[in-house]
Structure formats: structure tokens, C-alpha cells
């Protein structure tokens, strides 16, 4: 949490599936915790894909493949669809991911990642496909994610793309600030707003 973000260079873990929903990222039965224990959520990231029904490791799932490691998850389009559970973002952060790369993110999950200092990087379909190809050709393929410059580079091919993030959120990520600090500081403005609408 609140790990300041600048430039990250890392190998990647490829998950070339579309519409990965938050029920897969963290199944509902792990939502009963009342604390924000990132290790617990990280341990259960993609639980039902990572483990067989008998509890043994599913050797076919990418997180269990020793070839792949790193702080960057690369996933197919519409990542994080479905439930608003922030536990999904806690699981991703808890596992050690700092960046998720996809061509498209679901809205609520994208906000949840940002609020947990995990950077969602939206790239073009072409960039994503090439990155998957690079990773499969060489699992040691690195990407460089540069938040100040808002660029991502596939170091295997040299291909680079700009990504979008609003200036406010970028400032928060780079300085370890969160929205609650900001909102509590302007409670006066909120009370003044309430005065203007008291007759609505």
C-alpha cells in the first residue's frame, strides 16, 4: 500500500484470456475477511485456476509455471469485469503485481487498482498481441513502465506506447497520496455545498 510509483522494469506474467472477471481474480468465499490482509488475498489470487478442486497445484496455470515471473501481469481485454470487490485489487497487489497491462479494463476495477497503487496500463490491441508474442518467444522479456513519461516499452522489440492517466491520479501515485487525504482536507467546501442545496 502507498508504495510510491515511478519507473518499473520487470518481466511479465502472461494471461491471454478475455473478460477475466473479479470472481476469478478472487472468488466470493474469500471475501469474508474483515481486515485488509494483502498476503491472504494474494495467496488466493486466481484461486480456482491456480489449484485443482482437490487442493493440489494446477501445473497448467501460468502462475504455477516457473518460466514466468515478475511484477507485471499482462491480460486480455476487459480485465476486471463484474463485481466491484476491491479484494480483487488487494489480491493482485498482495501477490506482488505493480502493473496490469491490458487493452481494456472494467471501470470499477480500474479505480480499485489505482486506489491500491497498482497501475492499470491500457495499450492497443496490436501492442498487447506483440507483447504476448514476445513473452512466449522469451519469458525473460521485460517491459519498462514509466509513469512520469506515461510510456510503456516492450524491451524485446523496442516498441513503445503512451498511456493515459489523469494528472491528479498520477500525482497521487508518484507521491503516495490517496483521495481520502484530499477529501478530508476540504470538508469546509463540502459543508458550503450542502448549504446551497439544503432546499432541494
Amino acid at each position, binding site marked *: 500500500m502507498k508504495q510510491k510509483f515511478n519507473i518499473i522494469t520487470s518481466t511479465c506474467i502472461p494471461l491471454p484470456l478475455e473478460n477475466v472477471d473479479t470472481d476469478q481474480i478472487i472468488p*466470493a468465499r474469500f471475501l469474508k475477511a*474483515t481486515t*485488509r490482509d494483502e498476503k491472504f488475498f494474494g495467496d488466493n489470487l486466481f484461486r480456482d485456476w491456480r489449484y485443482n478442486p482437490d487442493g493440489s497445484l494446477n501445473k497448467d496455470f501460468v502462475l504455477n509455471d516457473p518460466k514466468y515471473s515478475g511484477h507485471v501481469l499482462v491480460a486480455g481485454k476487459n480485465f476486471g469485469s463484474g463485481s466491484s470487490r476491491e479484494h480483487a485489487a488487494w489480491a493482485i497487489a498482495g501477490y506482488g503485481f505493480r502493473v496490469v497491462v491490458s487493452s481494456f479494463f472494467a471501470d470499477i476495477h480500474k479505480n480499485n487498482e489505482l486506489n491500491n497503487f497498482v497501475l492499470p496500463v491500457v495499450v492497443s490491441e496490436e501492442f498487447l498481441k506483440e507483447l504476448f508474442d514476445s513473452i512466449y518467444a522469451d519469458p525473460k522479456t521485460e517491459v519498462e513502465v514509466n509513469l512520469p513519461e506515461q510510456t510503456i516499452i516492450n524491451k524485446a522489440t523496442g516498441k513503445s506506447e503512451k498511456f493515459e492517466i*489523469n494528472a491528479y491520479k498520477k500525482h497521487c501515485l508518484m507521491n503516495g497520496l490517496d483521495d481520502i487525504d484530499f477529501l478530508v482536507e476540504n470538508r469546509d467546501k*463540502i459543508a458550503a455545498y450542502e448549504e446551497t442545496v439544503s432546499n*432541494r
Partner: protein
Amino acid sequence: MNTLFDKIWDAHVVQKVEEGPTQLYIDRLYCHEVTSPQAFAGMRARGLKCFRPEKIYCMPDHNTPTHDQDKPIEDPVSKAQVDALAQNAADFGLTHFGMMNKKNGIIHVVGPERGLTLPGMTIVCGDSHTSTHGAMGAVAFGIGTSEVEMVMASQCILQARPKTMRITIDGKLGKGVTAKDVALYMMSKMTTSGATGYFVEYAGEAIRSLTMEGRLTLCNLSIEMGARGGMIAPDEVTFEYIKGREYAPKGEEWDKALAYWKTLKSDDDAVFDKEVRYDAADIQPMITYGTNPGMGMAITSNIPTTDGMSEVEKGSFEKSMQYMGFVPGENLIGKKVDYVFLGACTNGRIEDFRAFASIVKGRKKADNITAWLVPGSWMVDEQIREEGIDKVLEEAGFEIRQPGCSACLAMNDDKIPAGKYSVSTSNRNFEGRQGPGSRTLLASPLTAAAAAVTGVITDPRTLM
């Protein structure tokens, strides 16, 4: 030239953060037990009190068992989470409708039925189906737990302004076609990401003709197209529904509120970022065959084949077919079903029970079916009994359980076993959603009832 969404959003802007999001004032925060404990913990760690505790309503719904609610919850982890909500509400001075309280139920069923959800409001909850409340003409959307904490701390949230989309459905809905079918049809056309980034307003003759319950079902499912929220301009149907409800304005307050609510519609020259039109005549009773809600089809159709799909699409599709035990191109009519679930914030309202009862009346539950009929709230339960629907269901061999989210996401004991097929009126057919290995087919209460009495997937129109 403003849209309905613009009017409500603009009226709630406290300030626009430079090169950043909007600080939006929130009229209602609903809290359930699953997505709130870490927000309360955050408030404590920061030494904060809730800024406007009177605008926050709490109730457990996800973990609640659907039987013996008067006894302690057997699962100690579920019990701890439900107890934590009661304690947090007490500590922070918030309204709490606990289990066995007559006002308890699924938060998205209770809000509208108690008159807590009103037109023109901004409403949030740590739950993606908060979009439900948009049916009353509110801007309502689901948020994460950090955002729940923001609203507790400041009654505000920082949000990027979404784009606007209007979906117009012209014409009249056919026999056996419900709001659920309309939603499943739209998802099948738009996919689960087709409306991501947008706030949707539903319009057109088919939408206007829906009852309040139907509109709540439709808006509930907006998130399944990826939409930030969905809404319907309030009209006489809305006003009639709200009038006299417990927390709704009364007397002079009512007159004043009504005058304001009548201004809540998109101007004739309003410009949406995107317009989509469908014809009601094209919509049939629907069912899903895959593992996301966009994988739906008319119940009489065949599952698509992989022709023309890209490699990544094909990989996802085949994984889904393997999970469901279906073959691309096959027809589902006559397939054996194991479980039927009627309920959830999608279809746990009185009209859904009326629809289900209309099919099972005079018939019997099929022997191979385990049926879970779960009212969305105690108020719905009471209506079921007042209208004698309980008798119709019991004579057909069904029992009514106690209210809660239940098998929609199986956080309580109501889990569909691995490999079993469930025709469900809930909102998601994701892998493992109704229990590890469960296979969910989303459908309307009519289609669920047809499966419950025949034991197989059946077009409900053949029983009407």
C-alpha cells in the same frame, strides 16, 4: 440540451479537481457487510468519524443464511462479518437493519421499497449492482472499499465523469418476454464491455411500459454490459411506486419533491455520446450458455460456433464451453437441469414471484430439481403471503426461504455443487459464481419456473 444524467450529476458537483476527477456529493451510501469492514478500519486508523452519518444505511445481505435467521449463523467467519457490520454501525452512529429486522433484505431491494432511494439522488454502495437504483431516476453506481471510505469520511467521492449513452427500445415486448430478457438480449448484443465508460439511460416504448420492478431488474444488469450505471427517467409509474413508502417525503415535502422530480428527464435536444436502438419485436425469452452474462441467446437458438473468432477469442470461448459441458452449435432445449434459483437483487421482487407462480400454478416441481426460492427482503416475503403466492408455490412442491443474496454468489450455505446445472434468475454466470464448479444458466423467473416444473430447459411460452 442536458441529459437526465447531466442534470443530476451537475447538481452534485462540489468541485472539479484540476486536470483530475470531479468531487461529487453523495446523497446515500448503502453498506453491506462484505465491502465495508476495511473501510471502517481505515476510518478508525485515521481517527475519523463519518461526516454525515444520517445519510448512511447498513444491512447484512451477502452472508445471511436463508433459513433459521433467528438463530446464530453457523459459519463462524460469516457470523463475524455480519456481527462486525452491526458493531461498526453502532460505533459510527449509522442506521442498521440487522437480520430478522423486518426492514432487512438485499440492500438493492430494500432501498427502493422503503423509499430510501428517490429520484434525483446520487447513490453509491460497495457493490456493482448499485446500478439497480437508477431505475428510480437516480445516479447510482458501484464502488470499491477505498471509495466507501471516502464517502464515509466526506460524503463525497472523486470520480471521472462518464460518457452518456441512450439505449432506446421501440415497440412492445412479446409474450413471455420480461425485463430480464431485455437485459440479457442487450448484453448479448453489446458484450460485457460494450457500455464500459458510459452511463446509460434507457428509453422508448418498451421501457416506459415496464413496471417499477421490471425497471429495477433492467437497471440492475447495466453493470453486466460494463456500464457505470443505468437509469430511467422518473414518471407516473415511479411516483406511484414511491408514494406512501416509509422514508419517502410526505405532505408538503412530497409536493415539493414531486415538482422537482418532474423536471428530471433528458431535454428533447439532449446530445448523448452514443445512441443505440433495438426493436422489442426482436427480443425472445433468453438464456445464457457460457461463463459471462454477454454469452446469451434466445432460448430456442443454438450456441454459436467458433467460426470467425480470433485466436484469443476462440481460447476464451472454448474454455467457457469446456467449463459448461456444452458443444458449440448445440441447442439447449430439453437439457437436464439440477437446480433452480429464484431471487437476488436482480429478480427477488414481488413481481418475480408472481411470474414464477403463474407458471407453476397447477403443476408440480420436477423430481430432479432442487429449487431455492429466496425473496429479496422481508417486505417481499410479506407480500408473497398476503397475495397467497406462498400457497400456490407450496402446493406445487416448493418452499420459500428467508431473504438474502443466497445462491447468487454463494457466500452463505446455498451453493450449487460442482458440475451441476442451475437455471438462475441472478446476474452472473461466471465460473464458480454459485459455488466452485457450478454451472449457471441465467434466465427470467418465467424460464426458471418452466425448468423447475419440467426438469429440463424449456421455453416458458409453451407453458403459458
